[in-house]
């Protein structure tokens, strides 16, 4: 294999049988019944066959960072499982040059009863390091995790943060040529995340190849210049990240709107399409912190409505409702609407922190009384180098006054009164 190519997949496919193997713990009885039924069939029942991955081919050069994106169930994790050899492909083949490190989860195999030191050796060997190698890197691992004092404590007494840090630290010292990552970088606090980014940078310096599965378009964008976009088990796009993310956003918007439509049969008003653009009207889904967002939604009413209240809500990926824009609260009233129409919203500069946000569109009656429609209309991302979920929900600069000499301005808190003894 050419030394330039790190991963080469040719027609990779993975078939699952749903039905016979669907239950995780089959009972013997079920299988006997199934086998007896199969005696009267010829060949595998086509209804029970499902290709989680089909005919996937690509090539990744040494030192490349490639993101794998797609909706849930698109085959991203299956691809990673095949490349990391956790499960075998049904068809096709792949070649990987060099040492593979696969992190589908941090800390698999940790044992609560064992000490941090024992777990370091255990987890290291599980990941494929030799004992000599772990012993050589031991000090560096402990230092990276920052838990020197607790290495002789059983890890069941660790906080979840310490646990993850130790596990990740061991994994980070694997020094693979090809690293397969499944959303594991999003762990730990801010300081530790910076360490992880340093780790990713160090890998790049070493010309390591990274294949990175994530739902966070922000992480994908900051790490990978190239993405592979999967749809229903097939590779549908392979190229520059911006275009791939655009396809992904488009599909996720379509799928969410379609989802809402199914249950919206009786609603008096339905939102047919939503366009998310920048203030200039150019379609985009990644916004810098402080940019304005323009949202254009077209609706259709099934009956005339008087003063409906259109609400646009931004919900962060962890479920926090961050803000609402409402026609009623924000002081516009459409009056009487009937049939097709378009509503446009330009937000103030978005000071939200760096994350992914879902746009929900709600239509209520006047005075917030009944719900006339409720739909998920798409997603967008906000980007900022520093502000993230750990920082808060939004950031507006506060006004500080610096006055070191004025000691009398300190507010005296009233001393707590002792509780009266009844």
């Amino acid at each position, binding site marked *: 294999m050419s030394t330039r190519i790190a991963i080469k997949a040719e027609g990779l496919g993975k078939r699952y049988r749903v039905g016979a193997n669907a239950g995780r713990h089959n009972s013997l009885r079920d299988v006997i019944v199934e086998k007896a039924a199969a005696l009267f069939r010829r060949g595998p029942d086509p209804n029970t066959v499902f290709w989680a991955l089909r005919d996937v081919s690509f090539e990744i050069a040494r030192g490349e960072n490639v993101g794998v994106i797609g909706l849930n169930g698109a085959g991203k994790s299956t691809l990673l499982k095949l490349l990391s*050899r956790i499960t075998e492909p049904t068809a096709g*083949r792949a070649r990987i*040059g*060099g040492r593979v490190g696969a992190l589908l989860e941090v800390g698999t*195999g940790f044992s609560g009863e064992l000490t941090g030191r024992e777990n370091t050796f255990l987890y290291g*060997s599980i990941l494929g390091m030799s*004992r000599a190698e772990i012993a050589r890197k031991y000090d560096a691992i402990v230092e990276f995790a920052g838990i020197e004092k607790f290495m002789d404590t059983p890890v069941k007494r660790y906080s979840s943060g310490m646990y993850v840090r130790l596990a990740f630290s061991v994994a980070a010292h694997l020094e693979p040529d090809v690293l397969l990552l499944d959303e594991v970088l999003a762990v730990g606090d801010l300081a530790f995340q910076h360490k992880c980014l340093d780790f990713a940078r160090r890998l790049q310096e070493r010309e390591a190849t990274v294949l990175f599965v994530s739902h966070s378009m922000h992480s994908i964008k900051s790490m990978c210049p190239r993405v592979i976009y999967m749809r229903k088990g097939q590779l549908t796009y392979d190229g520059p990240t911006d275009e791939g993310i655009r396809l992904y956003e488009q599909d996720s918007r379509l799928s969410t709107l379609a989802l809402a439509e199914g249950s919206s049969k009786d609603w008096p008003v339905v939102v047919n399409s939503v366009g998310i653009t920048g203030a200039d009207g150019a379609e985009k889904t990644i916004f810098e912190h402080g940019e304005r967002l323009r949202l254009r939604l077209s609706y259709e009413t099934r009956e005339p409505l008087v003063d409906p209240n259109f609400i646009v809500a931004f919900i962060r990926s962890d479920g926090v409702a961050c803000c609402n824009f409402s026609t009623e609260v924000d002081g516009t009233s459409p009056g009487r609407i009937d049939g097709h129409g378009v509503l446009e919203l330009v937000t103030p500069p978005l000071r939200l922190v760096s994350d992914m946000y879902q746009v929900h569109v709600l239509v209520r009656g006047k005075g917030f009384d009944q719900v006339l429609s409720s739909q998920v209309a798409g997603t967008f991302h906000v980007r900022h180098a520093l502000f993230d979920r750990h920082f808060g929900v939004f950031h507006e600069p506060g006004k500080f006054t610096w006055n070191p000499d004025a000691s009398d301005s300190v507010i005296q808190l009233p001393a707590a009164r002792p509780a009266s003894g009844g």
Partner: protein
Amino acid sequence: MNTAQDIEIRPRHGLLNLDYSGVWRYRELMWTLAMRDVRLRYKQAALGIAWAVIQPAFAVLIFTLIFGRFAKIPTGGTPYPLFAFAAILPWTYFSEALRRSATSLVTDGELVRKVYFPRLVMPLSGVISPAVDFLFAFLVFLCMLVWYHMGLSWKVVTLPLFLGYALLAALSIGLWLAPLNVRFRDVTHTMPFLIQVWMYASPIVYSLDIVPEQWRTLFSLNPMVGVIEGFRWALLDKPSPDWHVIGVGSAVMVAMLLGGLAYFRRAESTLADVI
């Protein structure tokens, strides 16, 4: 720095194509997992490693009382406790090795789902870890020999051979049961029953001499008969094991082992999907 080696991923064919070089590369993991099991077993027990001794010692005590004193089973002149202990040593090892290898894939299901390494490492580490207990129990056996003023002959050097035989016998069944257990948890429930029946089908509390001639052939299908006879021969200077019994037993064991490897290999490729 790294031993860069290309990895080929594709559907594998062939019955015994089990990636043995991969197993060799991961031999340290096999060892680490075995030592983890030893540590875990004794870490939280107040008596710690003493359990490795107490369990077989109690079996010896009870067997001596019931089968030695009450039932008066003939031992050919050997004190019953020694007679029983010489068989309980390999039997305790074998039953524990069988149980551990058979449940290895399910116990560490998380590893099967999330990390790659040759799965053969797991049942292998399962048959290795009880060897530590065996060593401790063996020390107690040596003390008992001193107590009874008995010595050891040169034959003791053959003991590792019989222990290896027991290891392969446990593995040969474990390889069948481990993947089967992934699909049918019934296996876990069947284990205590299987081990108990097997124990009485092996000459542990009795000697092979009291087994009627017409039953001997059936007995020789059980590889543990050869192991136990071998232990008594090597440790207690009993008559040498019947080579016919050992021959038949090993043939059965080798057949089960090869079949087990083929079955394990077939199941291995889809373990992560069904576990």
